[in-house]
């Protein structure tokens, strides 16, 4: 009886002890929130090194892109403690800084000798600073991203197609350098029979629900001369957003949608674009650079069959591209801020950043991207560098969500539903955005 009692007590104590130990371990675990996509898988792999080095476990909360903003902005607005670290979208920075969701990192950067000069300047402005172009840092640039294009190199190099194209358009079929050329190529491939299959010109962003069509249309509008506001008078939008050049840009985007996209591509974003390209439906494909490593590895369309090019130039020779990507921030409601800052310090390390790139993440660290071997390290590396040099981003104001909703509606109504003119759409956008800024007391 005594021995049974001892055994029971022993087992119970052991159980309590093990629970306590695991509780201690859990208390140290960090939760990182991000979107569910390929780079997130690479980050899981990379973070194993952090756990090995520090003993701090990593948990991940990944949400599909379509719900990413809803889910995590809800979490931040409700001051939730789910995320200790968050890789938030670039447009969230204004709201998250002003509403106190993110921890300001200036003192930490100074203490740990992390310099923002070591990162690609566009990513610092885009992902870390609020107000923009001021030395107030709320995130460490984590995942560089930009809208660019992929094309079917194997189709472009078919001699019979090259000959026909040259006869028709008078120039060699190759990756386009202007939007006019891009449209000519798209028209050339539209409904063409290749290898017994009907193919189409291009896949572009047309999604209505979140941010798709805005990202796609802006990607074109910038190079046509669109500006968000008067550079000398902030928030003055009339004549800039709806300038003649902007109207031409939006008309071009609609023309591209009407002439050269696959049937039914009226609600297409990153996933649908990848599907269209992977299934051999389209000759060209607009998408964020994060999709490129996966496409490069694809058995059917990757390897030698795929090529990359940066966003082409507009009619006046201007060349810009829509910025994507995110910075990593410490959530101010987290109880584990110290451990979270440890992660950021570790992530800023050059070797970690180099491994991040090798695993499929897009590093923003100068030491990695300016390394002499970087451009040749992947077939898409040079296009990534070229694209990152010409980026522009959407509003990052605290009111970015209603600003985005307005552009989603105006662009989709015109481009996809064919309602009204490009001028109407952009005039309407000026009206909507003015209303938002007036509500905010900024006008």
């Amino acid at each position, binding site marked *: 009886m005594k021995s049974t009692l001892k055994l029971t007590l022993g087992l119970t104590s052991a159980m309590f002890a093990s629970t306590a130990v695991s509780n201690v371990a859990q208390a140290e675990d960090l939760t990182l929130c991000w979107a569910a996509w390929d780079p997130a898988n690479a980050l899981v792999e990379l973070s194993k090194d952090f756990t090995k080095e520090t003993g701090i476990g990593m948990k991940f909360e990944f949400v599909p892109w379509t719900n990413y903003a809803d889910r995590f902005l809800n979490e931040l607005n409700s001051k939730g403690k789910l995320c200790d670290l968050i890789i938030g979208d670039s447009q969230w920075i204004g709201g998250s800084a*002003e509403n106190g969701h993110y921890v300001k990192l200036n003192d930490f950067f100074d203490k740990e000798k992390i310099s923002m000069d070591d990162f690609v300047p566009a990513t610092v402005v885009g992902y870390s600073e609020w107000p923009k172009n001021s030395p107030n840092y709320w995130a460490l640039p984590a995942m560089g991203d930009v809208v660019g294009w992929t094309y079917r190199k194997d189709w472009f190099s078919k001699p019979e197609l090259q000959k026909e194209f040259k006869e028709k358009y008078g120039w060699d079929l190759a990756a386009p350098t202007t939007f006019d050329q891009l449209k000519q190529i798209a028209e050339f491939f539209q409904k063409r029979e290749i290898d017994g299959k009907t193919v189409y010109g291009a896949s572009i962003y047309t999604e209505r629900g979140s941010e798709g069509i805005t990202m796609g249309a802006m990607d074109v509008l910038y190079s046509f001369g669109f500006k968000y506001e008067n550079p000398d008078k902030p928030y003055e939008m009339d004549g800039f957003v709806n300038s003649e050049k902007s109207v031409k840009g939006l008309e071009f985007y609609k023309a591209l949608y009407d002439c050269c996209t696959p049937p039914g591509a009226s609600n297409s974003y990153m996933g649908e674009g990848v599907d269209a390209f992977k299934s051999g439906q389209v000759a060209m494909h607009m998408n964020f650079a994060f999709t490129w490593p996966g496409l490069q590895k694809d058995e059917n369309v990757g390897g030698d069959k795929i090529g990359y090019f940066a966003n082409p130039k507009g009619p006046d020779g201007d060349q810009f591209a829509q910025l994507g990507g995110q910075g990593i921030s410490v959530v101010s409601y987290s109880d584990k801020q110290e451990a979270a800052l440890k992660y950021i310090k570790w992530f800023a390390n050059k070797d970690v950043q180099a491994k991040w790139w090798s695993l499929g993440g897009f590093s923003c660290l100068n030491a990695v991207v300016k390394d002499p071997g970087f451009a040749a390290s992947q077939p898409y590396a040079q296009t990534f560098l070229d694209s990152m040099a010409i980026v522009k981003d959407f509003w990052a104001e605290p009111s970015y969500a209603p600003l985005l909703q307005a552009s989603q509606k105006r662009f*989709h109504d015109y481009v996809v539903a064919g309602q009204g003119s490009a001028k109407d759409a952009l005039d309407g956008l000026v009206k909507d955005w003015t209303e938002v800024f007036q509500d905010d007391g900024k006008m």
Partner: protein
Amino acid sequence: MLNRTADSVARATPEPLARKVRGISDKGLAWLFISPTILLLLAINIFPLFWAIYLSFTNYRANRPNEVVRNVGLANYKRILGDQDIWIAMQTTAHFVFWTILLQTLIGFTLAWLIDRKFRGHAFWTTIILVPMMLSPAVVGNFWRFLYEPQIGLFAYAISFVTGIPATQIGMLSNVSLAPWSIVIVDTWMWTPYVMLICLAGLRSIPEYIYEAAEVDRASNWRQFWSITLPMALPFIMLAVLFRGIENFKMFDMVNLLTGGGPGSTTEVASITLKRQAFESWRTGYSSAFAIILFVAVFGLANIYVKALNKVKQR
């Protein structure tokens, strides 16, 4: 045995508690039992409703926790009622509700009338007809999206086969004129069985002797249908219309999955607009006012309708 157990439990109850329980009347006991449910309902239904009413008079935004909440009076209501986009969304909703109810009632009643005839295998066919209703809206929305696909979708191929129009030109979800109908078709496909079930219950409730009397009077089949079947099944049909009307007025899932409100804003029903204002634009006060307007509209219409239903039942 049971009495003995009850006795022993009663004896085991501590005296102070027993004294308290002995003093409770039957009514008090009834309140005691239903109070948890009432409290729960107050917490999850009534309180949020009053809270939403309060918020609808403010400029509150859920994504601006640090901003001062101001009372804006009726400004949100005025803005909504003067907003052209809101009226377009309401028209889209009305179009959707009208056509889905019309089609579901016609087809549902016809199916119920056919199923009500006794024929071999009618139980099997009833089960088959009920299948769409048993599926999750998320599943239905996703597989209809594939069916509507112009390049690989069976629906486009079937239409192409019948009409000769190339399948790639049948953009059910991308064409401005077809997209609203694509949602009406899916909703009708999914919910007609529900209307059929209610109508079937109505048809089965008509006593057989009324038809026998009509036969004796040599009433034609058409006369029997017009004078007996339809009037007696009418309260059930109206009930089905009420249920479907309320459901479709707040339709969200199917539209969100199929078109997301597009192309443009052609299928943006009121619930989609509400969701965008509340959880994408974060205009909490404004969207609360919109929700209250929708609630009052549905509640008012449903009340008028229920009164009409009662009149029909009394006839």
